[in-house]
């Protein structure tokens, strides 16, 4: 029988963080900033290990997050070359938070870290799309066999709580189709082209200067990022077993100012829409009515669930950003603590 986390402060929830880039650092900062708020929920969180590609910060009594954020590898807990694979067994750990960079080709190194954690009976929270796009079904069934949680709210739409809503509020209902804008970069580019009549190339350059788009923007602009998220939505919301190859993908690099102009004459905006139903998965430029809930601007994401009983439910939020993503991760950690009995039932956790 696995232990439950005490709500009385007698025991802490021990975390291992894997990946210490923008999201990992934002999570460490939030855990540090929100320490009193979390204690108010009866949740005392200890981070016993933080791992990067070249080593890790390790302290079985709990790391001083503020110091590590400040001193980085100069901190006394830094162990060059330390690997999470061996430390998951050795360090006190209840939840492994996996935040390594996305690799949609084979999901590594995330897949190995998640698999190892689940095999050791640890709950897992991830913000990494790669492992889920490559082998979501097998990871979820491993989690089930081991009696562990594998939560992944941060992988789609950052802080938009889409999987939590489905899991907590729509279990009685049936999701018929899902549509949305799942990539903030392409939405920014299309919004700029529409609002300020700039060309695709200029809007892309601007997105890169603002830090919204990567130096190699292919992943966003050609729709691969949105397609990965659509795969996770299909498997996570509709219990499918889909892969990236199941999605018809068309990017936005061929959108012309004339296309946007002709669309606007008939009351439409050009948006990069991801669509999913029982038969079809598609990411493509679409003409969306200006008054549609999908007509969000800037870097916003939007997801509409069309359900049998509840009708259409639409969620809008910032689809990216380290703090928003870290917020979704922390929400998943709290969900696990709550399910394991670490937070009193009915406690206000918002």
């Amino acid at each position, binding site marked *: 029988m696995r232990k439950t986390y005490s709500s009385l402060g007698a025991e802490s929830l021990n975390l291992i963080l894997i990946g210490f880039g923008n999201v990992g650092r934002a999570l460490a900062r939030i855990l540090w900033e929100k320490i009193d708020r979390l204690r108010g929920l009866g949740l005392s969180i200890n981070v016993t290990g933080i791992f990067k590609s070249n080593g890790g910060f390790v302290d079985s009594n709990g790391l001083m997050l503020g110091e590590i954020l400040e001193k980085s590898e100069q901190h006394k807990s830094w162990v060059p070359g330390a690997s999470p694979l061996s430390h998951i067994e050795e360090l006190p750990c209840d939840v492994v938070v996996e935040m390594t960079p996305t690799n949609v080709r084979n999901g590594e190194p995330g897949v190995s870290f998640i698999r190892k954690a689940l095999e050791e009976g640890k709950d897992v929270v991830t913000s990494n799309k790669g492992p889920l796009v490559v082998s979501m079904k097998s990871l979820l069934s491993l989690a089930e066999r081991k009696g562990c949680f594998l939560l992944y709210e941060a992988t789609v739409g950052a802080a938009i709580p889409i999987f939590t809503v489905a899991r907590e509020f729509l279990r009685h209902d049936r999701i018929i189709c899902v549509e949305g804008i799942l990539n903030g970069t392409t939405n920014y580019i299309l919004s700029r082209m529409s609002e300020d009549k700039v060309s695709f190339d200029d809007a892309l350059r601007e997105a890169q200067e603002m830090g919204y788009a990567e130096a190699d923007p292919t992943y966003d602009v050609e729709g691969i990022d949105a397609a990965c998220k659509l795969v996770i939505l299909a498997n996570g919301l509709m219990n499918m077993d889909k892969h990236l190859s199941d999605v018809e993908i068309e990017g936005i690099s061929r959108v012309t100012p004339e296309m946007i102009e002709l669309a606007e004459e008939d009351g439409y905006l050009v948006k990069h829409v991801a669509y999913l139903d029982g038969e079809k998965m598609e990411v493509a430029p679409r003409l969306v*009515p200006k008054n549609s809930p999908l007509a969000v601007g800037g870097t916003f994401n939007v997801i509409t669930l069309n359900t049998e009983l509840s009708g259409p439910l639409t969620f809008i939020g910032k689809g990216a950003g380290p703090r928003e993503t870290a917020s979704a991760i922390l929400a998943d950690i709290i969900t696990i603590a709550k399910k394991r009995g670490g937070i009193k039932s009915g406690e206000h956790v918002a």
Partner: protein
Amino acid sequence: MRVKMRFNLADEPGQLLKALQPIAEFGGNVREISHLREEKRGNMLPVAVTFDVKDLDHLFKIRDAVEASGIQVAGIEPLMELHRKVVIMVGHVFATNIKDTIDRVLERGVKVRRLVARIKSAEDVSTVKFVLEADSSETLESTLRVLKKVAGEKNLFIAWS
């Protein structure tokens, strides 16, 4: 389906109600009533009532009930509910035989209501908007599938409503 039923009613109080009652009774959903006063012949006033029925059986049941109440049905016409889709194509739309593209749309029973083109030069890509209309959304969806295929063959980039 939506239909328009014409009656010739005596121009006196209570006549219209008499015609509407069987429609309501059998579940026809009334959308519009027009008095065609300019077509009045003697005391007989033509009136057109537009309403929705489930199918032809439903319609005939209503017609029989109207006639059984002593009202003469002068005519029934089906009204098309038009569905519309806007498709915009970018690429060498003209150089890749736009007539063939349009023919493949037309052969599916879809009307090209409007076509707007933005052309810069013969070498440049052009952007062409098709406003398509059909009597059912299924017809439009199947036309869209054809258009996507055509676009793939001709390397045209498309966005649709």
